[in-house]
């Protein structure tokens, strides 16, 4: 059987930006898959612990009998197993390195700084967290200018690796804007990224898996109350 004909499943949650990356990549390649929803706020299932024993996290891509973990690794795997157009990564090694660099930056620095805004205690901490986060956005706005070469996306005419790596965070970014009361993507500071965000969210491979902001905000509230121990304990 052709490798690319084996059954494909994604273990994940609707709210996770990392899971979104895997789903967008599969959508881009028109690969049918089964979405196995985990309810992580109720604890980690046996299925998850077996599929990703090292990190116990989503997403996990299940391809036939193979298990692939870590969202960016999954995206590269998808691009390599289904090499037909559209390509997710550029063919040029330098372009690939640039895309990987910014994706790593997003995961290691930028997304954690966004989460710090939500976890900040007191106005001073919140202001500092926002300032740090906005510095990152300025870098990303500049990177977008350099990467796009006048085209609509980081990937050029179509969404690519870095669009996926970055765009998956837009839902949570909007929730953070709502809860903090501050416009993080703005016409003043990030005019190009604001337009990019609209285009990304409208993309055929993205729109069905991008969570609704209100639903995500409700979910965030639920998780926050659970963390504070306000929900009744699970018996």
């Amino acid at each position: 059987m052709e490798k690319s004909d084996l059954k494909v499943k994604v273990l994940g949650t609707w709210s996770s930006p990392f899971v979104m990356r895997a789903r967008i990549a599969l959508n881009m390649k028109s690969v049918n898959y089964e979405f196995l929803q985990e309810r992580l706020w109720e604890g980690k299932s046996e299925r998850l612990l077996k599929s990703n024993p090292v990190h116990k996290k989503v997403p996990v891509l299940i391809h036939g009998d193979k298990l692939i973990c870590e969202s960016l690794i999954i995206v590269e795997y998808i691009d390599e197993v289904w090499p037909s157009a559209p390509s997710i990564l550029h063919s040029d090694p330098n372009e690939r390195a640039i895309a990987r660099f910014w994706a790593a930056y997003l995961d290691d620095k930028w997304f954690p700084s966004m989460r710090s805004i939500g976890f900040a205690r007191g106005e001073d901490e919140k202001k500092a967290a926002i300032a740090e986060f906005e510095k990152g956005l300025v870098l990303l706005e500049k990177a977008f200018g350099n990467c796009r070469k006048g085209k609509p996306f980081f990937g050029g005419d179509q969404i690519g690796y870095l669009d996926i790596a970055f765009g998956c965070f837009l839902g949570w970014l909007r929730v953070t804007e709502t809860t903090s009361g501050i416009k993080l993507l703005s016409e003043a500071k990030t005019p190009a990224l604001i337009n990019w965000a609209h285009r990304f969210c409208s993309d055929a491979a993205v729109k069905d898996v991008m969570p609704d902001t209100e639903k995500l905000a409700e979910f965030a509230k639920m998780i926050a109350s659970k963390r504070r121990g306000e929900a009744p304990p699970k018996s």
Partner: protein
Amino acid sequence: MADEVKVLGVWASPYSRRVELALKLKGIPYEHIEEDLLNKSSTLLKYNPVHQKVPVLVHNGNPIAESLIILEYIDETWTNNPVLPQAPYDRAIARFWANFIDEKILNTVRKVCLGSGKEQEQAIEEITEQLKLLENELKGKEYFSGHSIGYLDIVASVFVFWFPNVLEVLGIDVFTAEKYPVIFEWIGKMVKIDAVNECGMPKEKHLDLFRTRLEALKSSAK
């Protein structure tokens, strides 16, 4: 036009050394530029403004930063002696464990360096568990990459020189051949490879440097 390849790095950084190891294994001539991390050069700041860290590979004036990204760039640019496996699944597994080494094990080492008391004990416990996973991954193979040295061995070369030296300075005795016979057998094979030795670090010099750095790290973390 001949390729111009430079590596901005430091002799004591395992991240830096792994880039040089990859270049040597591929037979790519390069110029090593030793950076002073306490007094960063304008070149480094120009080539890696975001992180201001080593290593940076500069290929015909074009900078690439982040060691794992550099390794992939090297493999894609100079396609002789490929270091990454060919099959997508094998590549995904190699990348997974490379990530594990850097994001988990080396991060935990940092926690051990900065921590004390119960916190440090917990971090040491974490490292022993993480090393067990790595030991399991290596079982049944000559090298992490199979029959010969490859990408994951290059990434894991941190355990050949740097890691044992660091644990020695910290006075932690968890990384032994008794506990990790498979990893130690692999280390024995690695040190027989010329390129690996050329990218090693002189032990006493490294121990001295690390002792000094650890003091500085601890006082700046206070």
